[in-house]
């Protein structure tokens, strides 16, 4: 099942369990359950977890007071604790490639159908009767064309995928009045006036003008700084006009519009306004729901500051390679968002690694390398800046480790142990970057892997990365230069044999891309400021494909920020 659909069902079931399911979401749940056996199976599994969880509740013996303030450092390791990730929306569900394509197709088709149905509903005759602005009428008459360029551009994207095409690289322009369906991830749109809008998938939207956005479905957060007053978000029911502010707009499947004003003020007008109406003024800390296109007053709802999303998650934003080559050779620099701020690191600033153990998957290729020349394989793997060389296909496990990996001898743990040439200090956001090689015929978001400490001291745990920060579809990744692959027929591939054996040289006929992901040491339970000497990496064997690390570098300590 597609991650998107899975997350939607998880969220609907959560609302059902908590008695919070709105009528619109009830319809959505019925739609999905009616449509697909995969959805029904997931629903039944989730409901069973809830039913059993309530029965097992007596197993915990500590009173609530004992965990306040909660440190979270219980010393226990959670299996696949991806939901604790700083971006649960991107990584919060299992992406299994063991499942057949059919359920995936059904789920994907369901979601697409749902979106299409929603769009049709919004474009129904009832909507066209309203006396909205001329742009709105035009919007409905011309569903996806003409494609007119705007000066409205993508500022950032995180895990963004569209049902149709859409901008994925920073700086790309949105076409005016073209409908975009963002199925997952988040995007930040920059308007010429300085206004910024963050949209979260699933969302359906159009850029109507240089200062106007039409949101048919989904969640949008707007920051309109001084000079951008008058920026407008239109929805099927309302027009939300900025008066110098930060606000969020959530549009349900039937167009019901919730507006939360975080800062400043905004004016909300019904789509069908009474002549002379001044609209509903909302100020800092107020929230209202507008149910119909004639709803001028709206209904007060609880204000939720968290409804506003100002930043995209901390992550690797982009990377550059040396020279003018259109392929990824040597890494030159990296842009990373840490603590909400973009930081550029030159490759020379990064903290290098030394491989201290390696057990690969038997029968696989274990080294990707360029021509070795006079340099040793170890030198090529550890000290070079190339995004096409590395010890690939390390061994793994479906379940992450919860005890120290064994680094030497016959019982060496499958996977790869690395030591940083100097300790990496845990700071805000990601603390190191890992690149992997990925074919464009494989999962666009990369292959999952587990990362854990070399020593499980109190409070430390494994963490499973399910998705890379940039995907093969993101537009910001580069194909790698052609490299050799070395296969070893030595049974269980160990580090020593790989470094001394010549191996059999193969070349992959397929294009590979270098995908980066930032790893936050806090996800492993390390405290802020903690120095980390090394890590252990394992393939997530619950997925069919093995991951192929080719470059790992720690970030320098953040000082005085």
């Amino acid at each position, binding site marked *: 099942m597609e991650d998107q659909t899975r997350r939607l069902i*998880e969220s609907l079931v959560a609302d059902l369990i908590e008695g919070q399911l709105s009528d619109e979401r009830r319809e959505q749940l019925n739609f999905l359950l009616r449509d697909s056996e995969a959805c*029904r199976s997931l629903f039944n599994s989730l409901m069973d977890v809830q039913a059993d969880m309530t029965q097992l*509740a007596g197993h*915990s013996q500590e009173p609530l007071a004992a965990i306040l303030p909660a440190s979270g450092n219980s010393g226990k390791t959670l*299996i696949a604790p991806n939901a604790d990730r700083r971006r649960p929306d991107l990584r*919060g569900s299992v992406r299994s490639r063991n499942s057949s394509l059919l359920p995936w197709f059904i789920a994907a088709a369901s979601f697409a159908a749902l979106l299409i149905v929603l769009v049709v509903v919004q474009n129904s005759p009832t909507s066209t009767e309203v006396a909205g602005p001329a742009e709105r009428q035009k919007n409905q008459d011309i569903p996806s064309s003409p494609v007119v360029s705007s000066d409205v551009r993508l500022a950032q994207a995180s895990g963004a995928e569209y049902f149709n095409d859409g901008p994925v690289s920073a700086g790309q322009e949105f076409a005016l009045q073209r409908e975009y369906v963002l199925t997952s991830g988040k995007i930040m749109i920059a308007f010429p006036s300085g206004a910024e809008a963050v949209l979260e998938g699933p969302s359906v939207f159009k850029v109507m003008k240089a200062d106007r956005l039409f949101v048919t479905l989904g969640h949008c957060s707007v920051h309109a700084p001084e000079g951008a007053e008058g920026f407008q978000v239109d929805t099927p029911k309302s027009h939300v006009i900025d008066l110098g502010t930060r606000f969020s707009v959530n549009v349900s499947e039937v167009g019901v519009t919730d507006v939360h004003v975080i800062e400043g003020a905004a004016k909300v007008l019904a789509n069908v306004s009474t002549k002379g109406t001044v609209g509903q003024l909302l100020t800092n800390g107020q929230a209202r729901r507008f149910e119909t296109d004639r709803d001028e007053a709206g209904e007060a709802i609880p204000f939720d500051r968290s409804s506003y999303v100002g930043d995209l998650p901390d992550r690797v934003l982009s990377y550059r390679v040396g020279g003018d080559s259109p392929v990824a050779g040597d890494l030159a620099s990296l842009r990373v968002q840490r603590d909400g701020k973009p930081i550029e690191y030159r490759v020379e600033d990064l903290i290098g690694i030394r491989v201290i153990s390696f057990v690969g998957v038997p029968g696989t290729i274990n080294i990707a390398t360029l021509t070795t020349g006079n340099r040793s394989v170890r030198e090529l793997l550890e000290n070079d800046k190339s995004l096409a060389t590395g010890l690939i296909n390390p061994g793994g*496990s479906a*379940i992450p480790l919860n005890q120290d990996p064994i680094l030497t001898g016959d019982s060496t743990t499958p996977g790869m142990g690395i030591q940083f040439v100097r300790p990496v200090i845990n700071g805000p956001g990601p603390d190191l970057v890992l690149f992997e090689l990925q074919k464009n015929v494989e999962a666009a978001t990369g292959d999952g892997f587990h990362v854990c400490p070399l020593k499980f001291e109190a409070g430390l745990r494994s963490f499973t990365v399910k998705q890379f920060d940039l995907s093969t579809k993101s537009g910001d990744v580069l194909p790698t230069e052609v490299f050799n692959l070395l296969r070893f027929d030595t049974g269980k591939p160990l580090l020593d044999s790989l470094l001394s054996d010549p191996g059999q040289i193969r070349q992959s006929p397929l294009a590979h891309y270098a995908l980066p992901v930032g790893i936050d040491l806090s996800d492993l339970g390390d405290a802020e400021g903690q120095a980390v000497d090394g890590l252990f990496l394992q393939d997530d064997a619950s997925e069919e494909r093995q991951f192929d690390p080719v470059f790992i570098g720690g970030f320098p300590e953040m000082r005085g920020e």
Partner: protein
Amino acid sequence: MGDTHESQLLVRLLTQHHQALFRYVHALLGNAEDANDVLQETSVALFSKLDQFDQSRPFLPWAYRFAYLEVLKWREKNANRPSTLDPDVVELLARSREVGDDLLQRRSRVLPDCFRLLPEKDLVVIRTRYFDRSPVDDIAVKLKMSRRTLFREFERIRRVLMDCIESKLASEEI
């Protein structure tokens, strides 16, 4: 009915399969309280029809049929209450459960192992809500979070448990 031997048999079967029946009804109704009520009615129905039970066949598929009928009766009786799932969806879900019962039971068998791996703070929140039955608002105040955030915490815990179950089942298959 009323034969002591048969009564004992029913008690034994219901004890053995209580949780499976609870899960079945819970999924079709969407909440635990209503599920408990319907489970009681199902027990009564099973008791009255136990003489029709063929002991050479598995108990659960037979019991599910009664549970399903009791779910329908409950829905009819409570027609004025807003129901979550449409009737055709309830039927589809019931069919899906019956076909996929083996897998659902395997998942349920590995859940306790996953439950034990939860961090203490998660276990305590679960216990406080479902064992001590503390009101949601009280828990939210103590944890200094909104109700919505608390509900998201439970959603996260369920997701972690689901991931764990899937990992364990996958490792069993390797």
